[in-house]
């Protein structure tokens, strides 16, 4: 009886305690551990000694670091850009009065739940240079086959295509929900004023769904910076290291060559990029909501 009373008086804390503790132990603790590692010269076998910022300094002199950073930024910019555009387009397409809207919405969101690694491996089949359906299709159209895995630019493009296929549905779902939240009367009023479709979209729809757009953009950019599964399966960084995404490179340094110190420094640099990005945009999102 007493225990029940105690629980009830402190209920407020017992409700959030389990999940907060779980997260602190499983996320916050490894984060600190990893920060610590990044200052050590730890290799596979023994604990290294404290080397200060040397792991970080070594990074900036490393060609592969800059290479993977450049590739990741190119990937993020193109993938997120296309996903946003397609997401808006698809959402507008389904925000009209069509039959079977629910059916199409269900269909359009299926890629979202497909395993990214599995998609990468399926990509090996679809993009196969000699005999994949995409190249065979291009060939029958009388076009040149694309050397998806030999040409560095095409290889990066293939990763972008798979990522776009998988994640555009997310942008689409959120933007569609935002569009459906716009009160219908506003459009009717605008139509009375006989405003053009483009003007309605630009001056009415866009400002109203701006918060949703920003949120999607933020979430997608953060996720895209972490990309690993698709390049791991599809190109494993090749040809050479021309599609070696940042996380993939970090993974190789840490868990293939067991250079824990340098890998942690690499990982923390990515963490820093994402952190700065978040801080910059959180204030923007907040100002939009309040303004």
């Amino acid at each position: 009886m007493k225990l029940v009373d105690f629980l009830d008086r402190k209920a407020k804390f017992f409700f959030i305690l389990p999940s907060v503790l779980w997260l602190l132990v499983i996320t916050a603790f490894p984060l600190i551990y990893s920060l610590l590692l990044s200052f050590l010269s730890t290799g596979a076998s023994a604990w290294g000694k404290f080397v200060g910022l040397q792991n970080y300094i070594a990074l900036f002199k490393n060609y592969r670091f800059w290479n993977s950073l450049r590739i990741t930024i190119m990937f993020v910019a193109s993938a997120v850009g296309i996903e946003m555009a397609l997401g808006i387009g698809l959402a507008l397409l389904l925000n009209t009065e069509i039959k079977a809207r629910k059916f199409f919405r269900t269909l359009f969101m299926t890629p979202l739940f497909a395993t990214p690694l599995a998609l990468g491996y399926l990509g090996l089949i679809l993009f196969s240079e000699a005999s994949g359906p995409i190249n065979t299709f291009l060939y029958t159209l009388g076009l040149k086959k694309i050397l998806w895995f030999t040409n560095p630019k095409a290889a990066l493009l293939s990763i972008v295509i798979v990522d776009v296929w998988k994640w555009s549905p997310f942008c689409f779902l959120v933007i569609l929900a935002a569009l459906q939240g716009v009160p219908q009367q506003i459009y009717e009023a605008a139509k009375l004023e006989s405003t053009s479709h483009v003007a309605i979209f630009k001056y009415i729809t866009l400002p109203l769904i701006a918060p949703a757009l920003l949120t999607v953009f933020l979430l997608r950019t953060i996720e895209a910076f972490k990309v690993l599964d698709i390049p791991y399966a599809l190109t494993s960084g090749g040809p050479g290291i021309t599609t070696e995404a940042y996380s993939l490179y970090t993974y190789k340094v840490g868990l293939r060559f067991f250079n824990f110190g340098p890998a942690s420094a690499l990982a923390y640099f990515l963490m820093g990029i994402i952190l700065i990005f978040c801080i910059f945009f959180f204030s923007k999102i907040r100002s939009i909501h309040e303004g």
Partner: protein
Amino acid sequence: MNRSVYLKKFSLYILLMIVTFIIIFPFYWAFITSIKLPKEAFSLSLIPWLQFKPTLMNWKAEVVGKGETLFNAIKNSLIVATSSALISTLIGTLAGYGLARFRYQTWKNKDIAIFFLASRMVPPVVVVLPYFLIFKFLGLIDTKISLIVVYTAINMVFPVLLSRDAFHEIPSEIEECALVDGCTRFGVFFRVSLPLVIPAVVAAFIICYAFAWNEFLIALTLTFRHSVTIPITIAGTEHIQGVQFWFTSIRFLLTVAPPVVVAAFAQKFIVKGLTFGAVKG
């Protein structure tokens, strides 16, 4: 006038058909590759019976021949995804209730919500090395427990925020009645409030389940034989003779089917679930 409306409708449906094709094609291609003879796997034939003779040979070779590894991986994935989704939904919903009903002082409610969100921003490569070292130290490498513990944490944010929004919509008068009648806070939670937010809980559970099922990097790091999950086994189809398309496509289908099918059936809940916050702001 009428004609332009008709034309518009027509082009709309053409566009929808194109998108439908692009979404279905990869699944369909994987399916027909899995029922083609290896020598036919490279042809552009699309329709079974008409253009090529379908065969179950590959499925037999995969499922009967290598069945043990495959079923073991599927079993592991089921156990890991289901238990981690259950735990994060249970304790995440508790936190969601707390955030919706109480006001916290030292850490404000908003700070706690951001703390949960921030956990999702951490790149997996940052924590995967410590996980490896910690679980090695604990002797938990290649166990399902290590995966369950980690997945529970990384998916926690979904049930917390989803259920918080759902609890917000329940009038607190209902709970006050139960409290007056002598029910404890936890009693109210389980008997009164939780049953009212079942849709949000289902959505959260499915999202957690799918994310856990699809996770690759952490599973790759923490398991190597007994506890490998299904995504790891596709990575294993790479062969010295190159990729064996027909086997890869079977594993692709086995991997992708569970989360996709579950999500399709529960799509009503999911749409609400995935668009949380983003719309309301």
